[in-house]
């Protein structure tokens, strides 16, 4: 059936918090009353990008844009516009007199392709004011969870939403909650909820930014989790390197306690719950669940074997439900707006089985050789190409894309041929990388993939706790091999040896740090094997990075003797008079690249090192 008019009511988070659902329902009732139900259809749309003036209502095909339309305005709008065909001037948006001299945010690809759920309040509310969060519909979900839902209903809602752990594992949160609740009931021991804010991946800052922008969303999520699981006690384990995030959390907790949203008898519901902040000392391994719990107890941060899961025996042997910051921050909105709303974003059909896809959105921090460095939130299933080239704005200085590393140090490097792959938990794992917590490092053609593998293995060697032999020795040996390959001393058998060590580590290491540690090696071997071969067989570094394999030369044709490189060189390796071609002393040169940056004429280049007999 065709409708003559469509009334589009914005149902983005901003307008919903301005009560646009009530506006939509009121419009529908009014339309029905006037007998227009066959002619006019009310549609709830996604965000219109004009949240400051919500609730937004657009009447099509008239193209009339109304703002601030409340339920009480519905009779007038229906009577005037839909019955009499007169525009309601007082609700119409008055555009500035001349055409705006700057583009709309929605026309800029960086913003246009993002969809904010977890970061809905970023840049909009003051994170240090609880009233700001409450005004943005904060703490509405706990009302629902505490007074109108049973713990089982909450768990079922989270399960049906398909929410999977945002810390990297991708384990369905609802299933974890249920297991923890059952373990507690079965053993008669009080369970604990923990928030993992020990974000340690180089280049990753999603969780830090979520806490800094919207600390109460994490707290509210944890209160709901505690209600579902039956906890009185919660912890946020945050690394010491995040002082601003910690400060904002402390303030937020204090404000929530003042309001009685934490403590005894929350909102008069009879539920007791409080959260304590524990600082980690910045050990990467403490992001691993059992190591985190050991650290929480005050012991050295070392993992243990996990044939008994922490949901059963975790912190002080109590059933412990650990979720990461982003996972917790998703929870209030799922309860507030429903599992169906959440699972309508993303991939797969998760209502029956949360393993069946990746619903919702994911926050990524985008760093490396990319124009728009920053923090983004996108629906699951978006392609890497859209993230890197549309949102990220591509590679700077007109260079070529070479690889993107997803999932932090234990993730993998994916080449150009994988750019059209959808970003979700299962596709990334299949390609030999992982979602991880969401760090994304973009690399251009001046990157050496062997050196990248070496860098991450060096990081992990430092961070390995040393408790189990495959991780401790496997990483150390891998690093030795990679060191020698990047120095031009690689042996033809090294590639097989690396592969073998990696496979043993995947099978035998005690915790996820060790089992995922070989990923940088394995994925670069899988997709960039030719670079290993070039290093080993020809003693060449195609990316021009490995210092032992390159040398710098000055092109006498291009050098105009401007002296800029001489001033830039810290070791006085370049000589020459002003306005005469300069010369470079290879014995002194430390290959730092300062001269290349200083030269405006591109007269200095890196070339493969020549090996005099």
């Amino acid at each position: 059936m065709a409708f003559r008019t469509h009334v589009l009511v914005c149902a983005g988070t901003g307008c919903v918090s301005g009560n646009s659902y009530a506006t939509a329902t009121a419009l529908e009732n009014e339309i029905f009353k006037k007998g227009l139900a066959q002619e006019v259809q009310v549609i709830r749309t996604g965000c219109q990008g004009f949240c400051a003036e919500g609730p937004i209502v657009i009447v099509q095909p008239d193209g009339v844009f109304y703002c601030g339309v409340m339920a009480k305005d519905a009779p007038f709008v229906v009577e005037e516009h839909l019955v009499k065909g007169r525009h309601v001037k007082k609700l119409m948006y008055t555009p500035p007199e001349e055409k705006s001299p700057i583009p709309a945010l929605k026309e800029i690809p960086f913003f246009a392709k993002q969809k904010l759920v977890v970061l809905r309040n970023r840049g909009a509310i003051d994170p240090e004011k609880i009233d700001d969060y409450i005004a943005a519909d904060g703490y509405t979900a706990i009302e629902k969870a505490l007074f109108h839902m049973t713990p089982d209903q909450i768990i079922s809602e989270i399960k049906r939403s398909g929410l999977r752990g945002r810390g990297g594992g991708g384990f369905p949160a609802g299933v974890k909650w249920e297991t923890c609740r059952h373990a507690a009931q079965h053993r008669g021991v009080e369970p604990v909820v923990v928030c993992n804010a020990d974000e340690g991946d180089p280049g990753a800052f999603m969780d830090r930014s979520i806490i800094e922008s919207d600390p109460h969303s994490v707290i509210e999520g944890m209160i709901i989790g505690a209600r579902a699981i039956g906890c009185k006690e919660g912890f946020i384990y945050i690394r010491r390197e995040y002082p601003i995030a910690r400060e904002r959390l402390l303030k937020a907790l204090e404000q929530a306690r003042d309001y009685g949203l934490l403590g005894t008898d929350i909102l008069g519901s009879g539920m007791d719950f409080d959260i304590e902040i524990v600082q980690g000392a910045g050990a990467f391994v403490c992001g691993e669940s059992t190591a985190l719990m050991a650290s929480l107890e005050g012991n050295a941060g070392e993992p243990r074997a996990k044939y008994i899961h922490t949901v059963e025996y975790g912190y002080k042997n109590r059933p412990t439900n650990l979720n990461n910051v982003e996972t917790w921050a998703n929870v209030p909105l799922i309860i507030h707006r429903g599992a169906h709303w959440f699972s309508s974003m993303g991939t797969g059909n998760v209502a029956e089985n949360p393993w069946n896809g990746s619903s919702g959105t994911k926050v990524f921090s985008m760093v490396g050789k990319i124009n728009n460095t920053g923090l983004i939130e996108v629906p699951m299933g978006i392609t890497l190409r859209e993230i890197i080239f549309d949102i990220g704005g591509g590679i700077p200085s007109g260079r070529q894309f070479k690889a993107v590393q997803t999932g932090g140090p234990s993730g993998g490097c994916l080449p150009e041929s994988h750019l059209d792959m959808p970003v979700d938990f299962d596709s990334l794992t299949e390609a030999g990388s992982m979602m991880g917590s969401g760090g994304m490092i973009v690399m251009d053609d001046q990157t050496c993939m062997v050196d990248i593998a070496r860098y991450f293995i060096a990081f992990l060697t430092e961070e390995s706790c040393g408790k189990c032999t495959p991780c401790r020795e496997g990483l150390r040996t891998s690093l030795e091999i990679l060191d020698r390959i990047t120095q031009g001393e690689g042996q033809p058998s090294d590639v097989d040896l690396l592969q073998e060590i990696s496979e043993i580590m995947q099978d035998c290491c005690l915790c996820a740090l060790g089992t995922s540690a070989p990923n940088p090696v394995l994925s670069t071997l899988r997709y960039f094997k030719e670079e290993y071969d070039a290093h080993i067989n020809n003693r060449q570094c195609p990316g021009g990075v490995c210092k032992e394999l390159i040398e710098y030369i000055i092109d006498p044709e291009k050098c105009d003797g401007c002296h800029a490189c001489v001033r830039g060189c810290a070791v006085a390796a370049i000589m020459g008079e002003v306005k005469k071609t300069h010369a470079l002393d290879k014995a002194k040169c430390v290959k730092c690249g300062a001269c290349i940056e200083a030269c405006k004429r591109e007269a200095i280049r890196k070339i493969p090192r020549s090996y005099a007999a």
Partner: protein
Amino acid sequence: MARLSIDDLKKIREDAKRTLTLRSGEARAKVIVHMGTCGISAGAREVMGALLKAIEDRKVTDVIVTTSGCAGLCSREPMATVEIAGQAPVKYADLKPETMVRVLQDHIIGGKIVTDYALASGCETTG
């Protein structure tokens, strides 16, 4: 602060919503300075300080200055969002103390967007 009941929470929500939207408040404009770790390290505190001082010097009384988290585009920090009642919010990027003062003078007081530093107008898409 007394402990809240559900009804108190609702009342706070309604009151806070009113002050957050400029439509019914006394303020004509609001400036949000984005203060994530990225913004602060790029100089957001100095930008905020310059703005507050300029507002005091000019005896402007109808502008609210507030802070918020990272606006997402960390490479373009310090950033600030200027909301003037009844107009689409405008995001400014790559701010310095002196450009922030110019935004106050030309845009907030003078009504003319400072196009050199304005990134875009409007809001981001929420779920």
